[in-house]
């Protein structure tokens, strides 16, 4: 198995890359100088940490959903988790709940994300368990509905606070509440760890629920746990940073090509690589047109798309059977 070293490579690379990201700022490359340098460095550190957490959350949620739904297209968006969480978080922000407690926004996001997932699950299950296709289909539809409702709410919202919601919706790693970052710093690593502990079950469930059952997995319990954990980390990420697409889809695929499909390695690799990827994208977003900032979601798609296509062409069918 010569797929052993990339995971250590990824582990070793993470602090390096995150450190490099600290050097990127609106004033150009290098450590900040001047009277406000401590504050600026502190703000940059917050953004880098937010990138690490959000990227890790979205990527590991993508890993779980791809394994449980046995579909390479699954990611938090496709199942409506992100959009549902976005609707919950958006409503909380507009209602001014963020001012009451920093827990309000992620809690609202998690509850709405979980509610969306349950709704999608219910819609997809006609008799017995849901089929994968009806799950994906109802996920896409519910996702679109959630986005529409959020847009409707925004369009009738009072002008004050509108800018922050729209900016948040585009995906933004600027930390608007320190407490939220701290909370995410607990929830997302905890969720990723729990997902990693589920690795044997995730491996077995990719063979289908029946095979997983035969090798001793309590399939329904493991699926419920996996979906809840994926929703938890994805919703926390959405509450922290808004709607950032692409990360949950491409990072797991890229990592499957690099470290193989075994979830014992795939989960940590995806979490770290997702974190690095988003931190780098954010560094690019805040420097490339400085002093203007580009929404980081634009960069993830522009950087991630071609990168993913190259990987796919080079090592087609490694990790996924097409």
């Amino acid at each position, binding site marked *: 198995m010569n797929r052993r070293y990339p995971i250590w490579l990824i582990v070793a690379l993470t602090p390096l890359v995150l450190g490099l990201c600290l050097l990127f700022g609106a004033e150009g490359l290098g450590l900040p100088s001047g009277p406000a340098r401590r504050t600026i460095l502190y703000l940059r550190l917050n953004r880098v940490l937010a990138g690490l957490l959000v990227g890790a959350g979205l990527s590991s949620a993508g890993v779980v959903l791809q394994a449980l739904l046995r579909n390479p297209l699954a990611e938090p968006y496709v199942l409506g988790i992100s959009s549902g969480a976005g609707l919950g978080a958006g409503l909380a922000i507009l209602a001014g709940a963020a001012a009451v407690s920093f827990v309000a926004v992620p809690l609202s996001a998690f509850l709405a994300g979980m509610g969306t997932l349950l709704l999608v699950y219910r819609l997809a299950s006609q008799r017995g368990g849901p089929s994968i296709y009806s799950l994906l289909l109802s996920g896409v539809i519910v996702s679109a509905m959630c986005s529409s409702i959020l847009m409707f709410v925004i369009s009738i919202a009072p002008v004050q606070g509108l800018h922050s919601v729209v900016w948040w919706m585009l995906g933004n790693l600027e930390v608007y509440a320190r407490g939220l970052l701290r909370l995410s710093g607990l929830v997302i690593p905890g969720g990723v760890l729990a997902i990693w502990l589920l690795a044997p079950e995730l491996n077995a469930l990719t063979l289908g629920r029946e095979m997983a059952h035969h090798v*001793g997995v309590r399939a329904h319990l493991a699926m419920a746990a996996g979906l809840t954990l994926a929703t938890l980390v994805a919703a926390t990420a959405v509450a922290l940073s808004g709607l950032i697409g692409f990360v949950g889809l491409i990072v797991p695929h890229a990592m499957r090509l690099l470290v193989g499909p075994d979830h014992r390695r795939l989960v940590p690799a995806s979490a770290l690589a997702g974190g690095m990827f988003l931190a780098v994208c954010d560094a690019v977003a805040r420097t490339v047109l400085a002093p203007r900032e580009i929404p980081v979601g634009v960069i993830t798609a522009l950087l991630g798309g071609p990168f993913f296509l190259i990987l796919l062409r080079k090592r087609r069918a490694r990790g996924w059977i097409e």
Partner: protein
Amino acid sequence: MSDAITVSGLHAGYGAHPVLMDLAFSIEAGSMVGLLGPNGAGKTTLFRVLTGLLPFRRGSVSLFDRPLAALSARTRARLVAVIPQELATPVAFSVEQLVMIGRTAGLSRWGNPASSDKKVVERAMAYTDLMSLRARPLDALSGGEKQRALVAMALAQEPRIILMDEATSHLDINHRLEIMQIVEQLNRTERVTVLMISHDLNLAAEFCERLILLDHGETVGDGPPPAVLTQDALRRVYHCDVRVHHDPTAGSLTVVPARSPQPAPTGKRRSVHVVAGGGCGSELIRHLLMAGHAVSCGVLNEGDADALLAAALGVETVLEKPFSPITPAAVERAGQLAARADAVVLTDVPFGSGNEPNLEIAEHALLAGRRVLVMDAALADRDYTAHKSATRRVALLVEQGARSCPTLREVLEQLD
């Protein structure tokens, strides 16, 4: 002997639709049992019950005298492994990773698989001859290799019972045997109990010491293969004519679906009596039946190749005891069949003192005004009678009006 599987009074089904009705049987530990039956008989439902996938309504199911419901998922996985018909996964695991999934029930969550788990996986791969393919991704395996990987995955569970759910039906004959031999060896050496669903009755008869025949959720046959695979039972269950065939050379039992002869699109239906032996008549009999003619046959010795074929195709045949000279009584009975026929065909069978009396059938038929067709090519070379008397008698037949037809084709043309 303890029982590996005990089922009693089992009722199970889906929704309002009952599938298994009051099913009861037990399977002795270390045995190899086939579960047969037509589609919809309840075989798969029974498997789903035995693996705990489908909750049942009434009755009891125990594995090694422990109620199934009382077993945890992990304990159950250490007792029972399932080899499915095929593996459908979108993930390109390597062979080794797939086999390791068989260890799921015992794996530690923290860190890499223990060395004991790795050892079991190595052993399972060695047993199934997959060592050289261990790093190969699943999508780069052939059908037979993929199925062996599934067997290895089941072995990695170190189960005491293996359920095979049509595990070989996608494979060609060669790989089918390969899989079955691995499982058989496991059964013999490790005393793993095997219960296999198969639509291949012959494969089941070949490898299983006991067969259970299910129909409409009930047991309609249970016992050693020859007792279960009877023509009557199979006709009732499968609603199609079959011939059961005991192969004297291999000691095995073969089931052949009997195709009902299609009437010839052109030409007339005639009845033909065939004098054959030693396999010389087989092709003719098949062609006559395919052309829509009614065929009778004899006299043949029991166990003769032509006799087996005639039996398989449902041809009325006069039989003599095995390896015995043909007696006048048998000739007379065959003569009655020939008298009812439109024509008598004397095939290119070798003649000796034992079967020379068969010539009388043709001689009598000719005297009675029947058409007699003689396949007399190279007759002298296959005449082992004293003073070549068979050659002389056949020549006389032709002189008196029998038609000489050296080839099969000419026979068929003559009959048209």
